[in-house]
Every structure is written in structure tokens, then in C-alpha cells.
């Protein structure tokens, strides 16, 4: 996992993000998130609000978004909670970006199942395209992070790019996905294996075969 750190608190950062407020679109979502919790428990909405803020920052910067300190302070104010508590949440969860990222945040899973199925090739392919772990490429397009298990071991190896997972990858397939993204297209998310829909076994079911066509009762002849 990349070494996480906070973006330094500089006058430039304050100037750029000090005036952060919700756009109407995100404001209504934030209100809805806060309204889910009873009075006096508004701070339970902190995770949702951090996500919304990250996405709004992403829209404003044309990237996947991140959380500048003034934005976290804004959320602390709007939920009436100490800013250190917001910071604790934001630093704990790795899906909150603490530093600016590129347009595409490429998170390559490097845990054992993915590694055994070839995640090293994926990382190598990314490296060939100029990506470096924990860094954003100079064109601002790619940020590469190696992450731990994302729970797609059945379709390993996998990569998460922004909100989508790309699974059953090979070096060629990740090349294709990255090319498509760079070209501004939207490649199909999920498994890249032809003929596979989700994580079902290749070549048809191997167990519970009778269930494919009807609701079979396995309890025997009763």
C-alpha cells in the first residue's frame, strides 16, 4: 500500500479550496445523507459527505477527486464535529484520497490470488505506460496504487479504476482498457474474459448443475 500522507497546509491550498461549498447537486445529496440519521447524530453522515466532497472536487478538477484540508474543515463545520474526527475517518479509509490524483486512479490488486494469476504483469504494463506506484503521471491522466485484496479473487487478477472494476486481466486486456480510457471511451466494466458474465465458472457450472434450469430440490426423493 502506498504510504499515505496529507497534502501540506499551504496558503495556496487555502486559497484554492478555502471557499469550498456544495454545488446544488451535491448539496441535495448531502442533505439526504444527513437526514438519514436522527437529530444529534448528524455526524454519522461524515463518510457519505466525505465521498460527495471528493467527487465534487473530482468534478471541479477533472480528476477522480481528493480531499483538501479546507474541504474536510468545511465538512466538520457542516456536521458540527471536531475536525480531527473527520480527519481520522478520512485517513483511515483508503478510498478517500488525501493527495491529488489523476483522472484515472488505477488501483492494482497485488494480494496473493491476483499475484498468482499475474498481477505482476499488470503492474509491469502500467509501468511501461509511465505509471509509478503512488505517483500521478505528468499528463495528469493516471495515478497508480497497489492495493490489497478487493474481493474479486474468483476473477483475478483485477484492477479498480475509479468506480469500476476490471477483472480477468492479462497484459493485453489491461492495455486495451487503458487505451480505451485514454481515448475517452468507456470500456466494459467487470470481467474481460469473453463469454463470462460475472464470476461464474468458466465453461459452465461445475456444481448445482440442476439449478441452472429449474429450482431443484436436492433433499432427495421426498
Amino acid at each position, binding site marked *: 500500500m502506498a*504510504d*499515505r500522507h496529507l497534502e501540506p*497546509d499551504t496558503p495556496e491550498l487555502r486559497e484554492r479550496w478555502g471557499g469550498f461549498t456544495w454545488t446544488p447537486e451535491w448539496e441535495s445529496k448531502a442533505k439526504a445523507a444527513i437526514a438519514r440519521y436522527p437529530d444529534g447524530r448528524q455526524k454519522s453522515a461524515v463518510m457519505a459527505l466525505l465521498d460527495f466532497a471528493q467527487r465534487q472536487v473530482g468534478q471541479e478538477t477533472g480528476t477522480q477527486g481528493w480531499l483538501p*484540508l479546507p474541504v474536510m474543515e468545511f465538512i466538520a463545520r457542516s456536521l458540527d*464535529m*471536531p*475536525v*480531527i*474526527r473527520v*480527519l*481520522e475517518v478520512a*485517513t*483511515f479509509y483508503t478510498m478517500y484520497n488525501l493527495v491529488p490524483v489523476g483522472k484515472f486512479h488505477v488501483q492494482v490488486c497485488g494480494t496473493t490470488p491476483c499475484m498468482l494469476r499475474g498481477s505482476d504483469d499488470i503492474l509491469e504494463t502500467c509501468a511501461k505506460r509511465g505509471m509509478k506506484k503512488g505517483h500521478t503521471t505528468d499528463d495528469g491522466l493516471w495515478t497508480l496504487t497497489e492495493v490489497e485484496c478487493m474481493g474479486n479473487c474468483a476473477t483475478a487478477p483485477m484492477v479498480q479504476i475509479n468506480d469500476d472494476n476490471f477483472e480477468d486481466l492479462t497484459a493485453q486486456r489491461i492495455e486495451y482498457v487503458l487505451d480505451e480510457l485514454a481515448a475517452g471511451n468507456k470500456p466494459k466494466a467487470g470481467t474481460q474474459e469473453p463469454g463470462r458474465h460475472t464470476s461464474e465458472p468458466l465453461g459452465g457450472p461445475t456444481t448445482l448443475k440442476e439449478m441452472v434450469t429449474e429450482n431443484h430440490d436436492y433433499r432427495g426423493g421426498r
Partner: protein
Amino acid sequence: MPKVTVDGTELEVPAGATILQACELAGKEIPRFCYHERLSIAGNCRMCLVEVAPGPPKPQASCALPAAEGQTIRTNSEMVQKAREGVMEFLLINHPLDCPICDQGGECDLQDQSLNYGRGATRYDENKRAVTEKHMGPLIKTAMTRCIHCTRCVRFSEEIAGVDEIGALYRGENMQITTYLEQAAKHEMSANVIDLCPVGALTSRPYAFEARPWELKKTLSIDISDACGANIRVDSRGREVLRVLPRVNDDVNEEWISDKARYMCEGLTRRRLDQPWIRKGGKLQPATWEEAFAAIKRINPGENIAALAGDTLDCETMFAAKKLVAALGSTMLEGRQTGMDYDTSSMAAVNFNSGLAGIEAADAILIVGSHVRWEAPLVNVRLRKAVKRGAKVFLIGPDWETTFGGEFLGDDLSLLGNLPGHVADALKSAERPAIIVGGGAIAKGAIPPALALAAQYNLVRDGWNGFNVLHLAAARMGGLMLGFAQKGGLADIVAAKPKMVISLAADEVDYTKFADSMIVYVGHHGDAGAHAADIILPAAAYTEKAGTYVNTEGRVQFAEKAVFAPGDAREDWTILRAMADALGVEVGFDRFEELRAAMIAEVSALGVEGLADYGNVLPDGNAAPVSVVIGYPVKDFYLTNSICRASATMQRCSAELIDRDEIAEAAE
């Protein structure tokens, strides 16, 4: 009342007790890092593992497991020993082996417990974790690589101090304890996290590399920085006080002390008066004791003498001065240096009757003219506890940042006679309503209208006395019990134009009013009082004399002498005794024991440790409150008496934590 068996001993424990508490009741010591009696349970250090049956066949964290009927607990089985050794090994994986240069050495929980549970050698040959040091202000020194993530400091600042400023960022191995953007911890109790830290991650910055705990002489004493009378332990080496730590006293300070109480001891070695001085030709010149007493003899004030008591005095000094003044035929005694002249005929009317611990039980509290955080941080902790239990708090006075919420009603004293409807309702419907009258309000004459309010809302009822006066001076209650109060306050003494004024470390008095008097200053610091003096007699500070102190709730407490006064300075009572000889009168004591006995003979309550009984009967307060804006007497928390004004640490705190904004502006 569940019945449990601990290592074969059967005992009954209170309902709701945890297994750890049950083991302690059985006399078993359970090692722990994260668990602390006064903080919420975190259960994250895992050091307190025990074996519990019935239950899963694995060790259990005893601090977070409730004791239940019929449990069999084993604290010394092989499984427990092995489990704790395992936990200890994990804790030590990332803990540096820098005990020889660590200030916690010798009083470190980790060090102590590794003696019992540590392995002789490490099996870990990877790199250790290293964490950058964090700035936490002028009082707390950090070495965060040593941190074992017990989160006691986080829980303290959130739960006790009420200022959420310390947090745990990141997670897992990367977890780091820090303040937001490494800002200084900005509250009055912040340094207590140093005591709470079980390892050397948070240590005392001013005390860094000063001494080892085993070199220090420990003396039990009483804090004089405010009127709460916190119980402290003075650690000294040779003639120097090196540090002050809190003692546990649930009735007074629990186990906290304010930062001022902890760090003003540094001022005991600076700006000290260590020889007599006499003003000659408008300039203070060094002198000997003989010359000083000869000069006093020449003044020969007769009955034209007054004594002014400072805010930090012990009762013995005040009593000795009273005897001296009385022997000369005068009764001019005053301790309220700023000219307050409230009626002192009933001590119950000037006392914190609910008690420091008792105020926690109040369910509606009206605070009049008290910046509690600065005037009595320990009371602030209690108020926070009361609010957590559901108390409503209303405040009259200028706004300040409370740690317990509360509603500011305005800063006009006349509100006292004309409370808004919801406040009146809250006080009326409360079971244990209370009022706290602070120094700012007393100065504006708030006691009589507050007494009227107490009668109106029936604040004194069966088993409850909700009338409280919160003083600022450690010497105040003792002074009032000894009669250091004129009817007209300081103005009476000014009007009498005494020939000689004995100023007992009275640094807050406006001495320009005493232009015609000879001022004999008996004190320990070259502060405001000494500047105005004609003769300076060097005396002992609070750590340098035994004494009796009475805190704002009327609790009589005794302090012991930790070190000797510097240079030619002497204990105050001996100076006053010698002054009696110089002036040719008899005061009736030659030894400290005789002085104390005479004092107890006159005011018997001063001889018994514990709450003095002032009765529950409040006098009538008939005056309607005048319309006047309340101000707070404490302008700077860190610089309230001559000792802390002399302390470089307190000055730095004042500059960094209070005036910081102004300084930043000036620099721009």
C-alpha cells in the same frame, strides 16, 4: 451482585463491574496499558488477558468483559502468562529500545511490565516502525515512535478535557497520534496526558532530561495556583523543585491538575528574593537581616499597622501576621487585594457549598461571572461531568469557549434578578439546582442578589446545598476564616492611612494608594509587590514551608515542606516572629508547632483535615442586582501569580497559546 471465583478465591463484585475490576477486588494485579479508571474502555492493548470459564477456550481481555455470576477467572495460568508474553512481544516489535535516553525510564508501564512478560531477546529482525515527532505545544514533548496506540490521550482530551484535539490518524501499523495539523494542545489540562501516557511517547517538555524518578524526593503538598487546592506531589532534588505531579483525591482533583499547577514550579528558581532589600534614596539596596529589622524598628508603627495577605498564602503565615498586628493593637487585616468588600459574617455565604465532587450531581447550574476554564479548570471538569449526566448550564457573563455547552444569557448582572423564563423554569423544576458565583461577579456585588436567588429557588434543601462561590485565590477561604477581611475591604485600610503595611506576598494590590505608608514586603518573588516595597524581607514559597490551606469548598488540607528557601530567605512565620521582637511585642509562639496550636485554638476547623463545617444556613440577601457589566478578573490563565509569572514555561504558554493571534498580526 455476581459471585465470581478469581484464582480460587470466591468473591462478590458490584453489578456492572468488569472482570478486571473483579480481579483487582480480589487483590490480583492485572497489567494494562489502555485501560484507565477515569476514561472509557477501549480494549485495544490486550495486555489484560485472563482466562475465563465458562467462555471460549481462549484468553479474554478482562477490561472490556463484564463479570457475570458463576465465572471462574484465572489470572496466573500458563495460558494467561503465555498470552500476555505474546502481546508484550508484539508491543515491543515496534517499540524502540531507547530506555536509557527516555524520560519515562523508571516510571514506565511498558518497562515495568516487560520485566514480568517480556522475552529476553527479540525474534523480530525486520525494520522497526518510525514515526515523525509531532508538535503538541510548549508543554508536551513527543517521541511518537514509542507510542503503543493505547489512545488514552485521545480519550482524555475528548472525554475529560472536552476539547477534541488529539486524534489517531491512518490505521494499522501506520497509525499516528497527533493533534490537528500539529497545533498546540490548547486547553488548561493538556499536560495530564503526560501522566496518562503509559510509555514515553508523551513526556514533559520543560522537564525533559532533568532527572530520573528515583533521584527525586517526593513531598505531599497542595497546589496554590487556584482555589481548588489540588493535591500534588512535589518532586525535588537537592534544593530545587523539579516537577509537580497530581495526587489522587477523588473529592478534589480526581487525578488531574491544571497545566499551571504542574509547571509554575519552574518559576520557583527565577526572580527569587534571596536577601533583604531596603529602599534608600528611592532605590532598593541589598541589606542584611539586621539592617532590615533595624529599619522596621525605626518605622515604629505602633497600632498604625496593617497586614495584606497575598493569594497564595498558607494559614499559618496569615495567623502569625494577625497575631503580630493584634499585639501592636491593630485589627487592620485584608486579603482581598483588589478591593472586594463582600460581607463575610457568614462563611456559608462565601463557600462552594455543593463541594467540588458534589457539583457533579447538580442538574441545573447557573454560573454568574466565572470563566471557569481559567479560574478553576478542575471545576470545569466537574461541570462537564454534570452536563454529561444531563445537567443544564446557564452562564451570565461575557462569552468564553466552554467545554460543556451551556447557554450564555448576557453579561449584565441585573439578569440575576430577572432570569429568562426557561432558565427560571429549569432551576425551579430541577432536583438539585445550583448557582456558582465567580470572582468577576463577586467584585460587582453579586453575593447578596445571589443569596436572594438561592432563597427564591430554594437552592438549599434536604441533603443539597446549591449555593456556591468560586474563589480564585488559594488563600481566600483560610484568610476569611482567620479574619483577613475588613468591612469595607481594602478601602478601609487605605482610609486609615497606616504607618506601616506588611504585605505578605500581596502582588495584586494597587500600592499607589499606600504612598504615605512604609511597605514591608514579605514574599518570595520580585514581582509587583516587591517593586512597591520600602523594605523587602525574603520569604518562602509554597514548596518551601509546611502549611495549612483551605480550598474554595472549605476543605482544610496540609502541605509539607519540600525544599529549603534559597539564599537568606526564611519561612514566613519566622520572619513575622522576628519582626515582633524588632517591634518589641509578644506574639505567643516560638516554634511552628506552637503557632499551629495557637491557630487551631482560635479557629478549630483549621486543625482537622477535611471539610470545615460552615452550616447550611444562608443569610438573607435582599439587594436587587444592579445593572453592571461583568468582567472576568483572569486576563491570562498562565500568568495569575508571581510564581507563574516568573516561569519561562508559563510565559511561553501565554505567548503561544493565548496571545498567538496578536503576535501573528504584529509580525505581519
